[in-house]
């Protein structure tokens, strides 16, 4: 028996017109208070709460709570709240698209059927594209377009999968699925594209740095984690996810190494961490799923802090390139403090949140004797030092730059309310790390975990200390410079448009020759398309009337023949005639 309650996601939707129309002050109050109110409402709702409606001929269930969904929703709400505070002074357009986007993501965490999932999925794609477009960088419109295309491709796969699933007698309810037929494969592919899986991993790092400083807070928290949620909900224990996740974890590390743009470093680190979660979903036992849920929450928290830090630096200096930043710690003391905490959390130093959540994932990998996966995960978690961990903070805040960054006229450290936006998530990072038992009982599955054993702590330091030492030694190599290699690389990216530039090709066909072949062939195929389909191409130009008439006659003749063939009378005629 379900009782009707208003879904939390719809409340956020309802706030969108208010944000657009109310006086600015009132709208800002909504930004500051509504997500927290919804958070309270979410935890107050009884488990049996439901909300059903008929829309466009479909029976939809928009409220279907689960323990995992509640935790994801909470993380989303905290990120929305922090993002809203950080976007305090931005345009209404950004608020509205961010809230639509957040509402769609929130709705996904508590929707009960696949059709609603798809509706929110597409809405999220469109709204987040608007959010990418809030940026004012040179490549922003094109990046937004690429982002939209990738996500609508994912949406299209998802839609084909859902339609096939329903037709073959699948249930429309959101539930665990077996990877048995084409439809479930398509659904999985649709989910994975949003998670940033190969061969589409590039979209994360492509689009996010192009958004405005505050828009990236929403973007980095929602899309990929929504995908992780639905993967964990529907495809827990699907073995194929383990290699996919490992690829993503490695991809994130390798690409971040060579990156100069600090917000892009964070974007790569998202792919890296989502890779961890995808691996855990692939393992799929209770410990692993607890690990996924907790790690998603933890990752959203510390990534929010880091993205806000990067955004503050960007607002203060007008640049997001490592070469033009550095040494901002003295000017941004509060941000620096929070960044240090979040960086520690990202590396999984004991007493911080990530230590707790990653240990769950690693524990489940050990239990399943996945030695290879375990080694890669450990290596990647040590390598976090080189991206979101120390390198990001070092590049942005603590490094002594060759020339001091340009400081904007009236730029300051985060002040007033906005301190909450960065302070609260940073505090939560510590709180989860210090008192894990408080959070364990919120997890979807019960179990007793004790992360603070001597062995475990020593193990963690054994991983981290060498990495940190290595980082310190390799500092001169990692010092930011506008690599020429990077620039040509980016140029290729633009020419090849979408997927070909991706890591698989780089790793496999590392030789430039092959790249050239692909490059010229893609240019050539574009030319071919243009020659035939372009305004003057044979398929698009205006034809002389006479030749159309001739074609009509030919088509008539062929139809007559085809019809006769089909109805077999011509066959009889041929047989009797000869």
């Amino acid at each position: 028996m379900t009782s009707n309650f208003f879904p939390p996601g719809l409340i956020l939707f309802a706030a969108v017109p208010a944000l657009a129309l109310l006086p600015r002050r009132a709208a800002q109050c909504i930004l500051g208070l509504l997500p927290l109110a919804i958070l309270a409402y979410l935890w107050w709702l009884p488990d049996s709460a439901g909300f059903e409606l008929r829309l466009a001929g479909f029976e939809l269930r928009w409220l279907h709570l689960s323990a995992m969904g509640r935790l994801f929703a909470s993380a989303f709400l905290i990120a929305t709240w922090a993002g809203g505070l950080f976007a305090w002074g931005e345009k209404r357009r950004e608020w509205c698209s961010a809230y639509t986007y957040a509402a769609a993501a929130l709705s996904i965490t508590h929707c009960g059927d696949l059709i609603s999932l798809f509706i929110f999925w597409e809405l999220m794609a469109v709204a987040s594209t608007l959010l990418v477009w809030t940026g004012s960088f040179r490549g922003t419109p094109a990046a937004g377009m690429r982002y939209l295309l990738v996500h609508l491709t994912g949406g299209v796969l998802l839609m084909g999968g859902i339609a096939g699933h329903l037709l073959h007698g699948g249930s429309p309810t959101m539930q665990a699925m077996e990877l048995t037929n084409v439809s479930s494969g398509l659904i999985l592919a649709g989910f994975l594209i949003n998670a940033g899986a190969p061969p589409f991993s590039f979209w994360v790092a492509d689009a996010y740095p192009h958004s405005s400083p505050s828009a990236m807070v929403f973007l980095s928290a929602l899309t990929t984690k929504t995908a992780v949620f639905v993967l964990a909900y529907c495809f827990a224990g699907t073995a194929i996810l383990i290699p996919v996740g490992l690829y993503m974890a490695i991809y994130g590390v390798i690409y971040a190494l060579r990156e100069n743009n600090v917000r892009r470093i964070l974007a790569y680190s998202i792919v890296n961490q989502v890779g961890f979660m995808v691996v855990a979903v692939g393992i799929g036992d209770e410990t692993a799923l607890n690990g996924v849920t907790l790690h998603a929450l933890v990752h959203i928290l510390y990534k929010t802090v880091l993205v806000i830090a990067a955004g503050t630096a960007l607002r203060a200096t007008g640049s997001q390139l490592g070469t033009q930043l550095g040494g901002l710690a003295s000017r941004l003391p509060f941000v620096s403090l929070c960044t240090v905490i979040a960086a520690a959390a990202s590396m999984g130093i004991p007493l911080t949140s990530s230590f707790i959540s990653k240990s769950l994932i690693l524990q489940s990998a050990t239990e399943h004797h996945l030695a290879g996966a375990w080694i890669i995960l450990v290596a990647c978690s040590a390598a976090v030092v080189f991206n979101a961990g120390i390198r990001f903070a070092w590049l942005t805040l603590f490094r002594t730059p060759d020339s001091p960054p340009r400081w904007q006229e009236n730029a300051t450290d985060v002040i007033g309310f906005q301190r909450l936006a960065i302070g609260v998530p940073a505090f939560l990072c510590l709180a989860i790390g210090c008192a894990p038992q408080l959070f364990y009982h919120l997890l979807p599955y019960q179990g007793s975990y004790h992360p603070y054993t001597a062995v475990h702590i020593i193990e963690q330091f054994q991983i981290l200390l060498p990495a940190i030492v290595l980082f310190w030694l390799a500092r001169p190599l990692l010092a930011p410079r506008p690599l020429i290699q990077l620039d040509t690389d980016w140029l290729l990216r633009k020419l090849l448009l979408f997927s070909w530039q991706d890591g698989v090709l780089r790793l496999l066909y590392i030789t430039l020759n092959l790249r050239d072949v692909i490059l010229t062939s893609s240019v050539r195929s574009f030319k071919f398309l243009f020659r035939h389909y372009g305004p003057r191409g044979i398929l698009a130009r205006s034809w002389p009337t006479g030749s159309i008439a001739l074609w009509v006659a030919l088509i008539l003749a062929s139809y007559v023949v085809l019809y006769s063939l089909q109805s077999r009378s011509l066959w009889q005629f041929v047989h009797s005639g000869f």
Partner: protein
Amino acid sequence: MNAHLPVLQVILPLLGAPLCMLTRSARLNWLITIAVSWSGFVISLLLAQQVWVNGPITYNMGGWVAPWGITYHIDALNAFVLIIVTMIAALVAPYARRSIQKEIDRHRQAVFYALLLLCQAGLLGIVITGDAFNMYVFLELSSLSSYALIAMGKRRRGLTAAFQYLIMGTIGATFILIGIGLLYNLTGTLNILDLAEQLNKHHLIATGNRTLITAFAFLTVGLSLKLALFPLHLWLPNAYSYAPSVVTIFLAATATKVAVYMLLRFCFTILGHGALFQMTLGKIILLPSLCAIFIGSIVAIFQYDIKRMLAYSSIAQIGYMTLGITMATPLGLTAGILHLFNHALMKGLLFMTMGAVIYRVDSVYLSDFRGLGKRMPWTMAAFVIGGLSLMGVPLTAGFISKWYLVKSALECGWWPVAGLILIGSLLAVIYVWRVVETAYFNPDHELEQRSCEAPLSLLLPMWILVIANIYFGINSDLPLSMAARAANLLLGVGV
């Protein structure tokens, strides 16, 4: 009064046309057009309601009974198409005045309104009549008036476009006439229901009669020309892009739909519930439909003239409709018929935004859209919503069609076809967002700074369609159930 609704549906616009010629005052003409179109819409709704409650209506002209006299026969299918045509006509009428003032010389406006009403009468006549020859007469009526309407375009190339359409349309109409003549030769009757009965009685369908086959070859080629099915679409891009905006809106949203209706009538009602259709026609039309979707969309991507781009997109969308029809399953036909309605909504809307842009900017080249997002916010917002609907984003009407098309393709086990439908929708993303990007993100046009938002009389019908696009995306029960009923009727299932 109620009993005479079927004839009123056609006679009102038919009488409105000479009235326009007599009054000669642009304002009065406009009022007449509005009165006629709106009452037509009301009549079609009343008719649909009657059909829905009491079943098909038969109206004998002059009291002559079926096989001898001309009858009007209205069932679930043509009641639905009547609503589409009259709805668009009712929305175009208020839109027409300002747009016409801008695009057509003052002394020709009376002729324009008269032709528009004639065209409307012709289209409604085709849909409502139950007599095959009468259908041809109305087809010629609507075609002749639309040639003249297209030729009234501001650009001189409108003349050649109209001429080409004239030739192609006449070939098409002649083919249709030959087809009807051959059927008459076989059965000795012109009444559509009687035709079906006679063909059935003499077992002509099962034996693969050669005259029948030739008749249907002529009919399908003629109708393919009329509905601009690939590769017989060549007249359409020119006709749509050089015609006056009002004409493009009206024709794009109604004329091709009526041709699709005729195809349905001939292939399903006359051939008997699609048995033969499934065997022969369906398979043959499948390939052109798929080509239309794919080639139409790709060509659209490369167009600079946005009105022309939308014309190519129409060709692709027609492919979706015929694709639904080729499946000849209840679900596929429902999807195809539903798409008639939804496509009228979205293409009507998109061409209306083009009309507004022409009204203010005087050009629809891609480069002239720069900065329009700021200068014409309401128009461009309408374009974005129409575009979203065209892409099939959920909560818009386009999604409902796309969903049912994909579902019916999968039901038939046509995975590649379903894939192509979805790829087509991605191609739509590219060509629509190209315009959106130019309008919102490119710097303003250097020369053109003075244009501002379109007048209210253009915006109002446009936004009614915007609301309709969203409403029928959220609550699609009404068109969906009507389309489903029409599909079942055509296949002889249930009802």
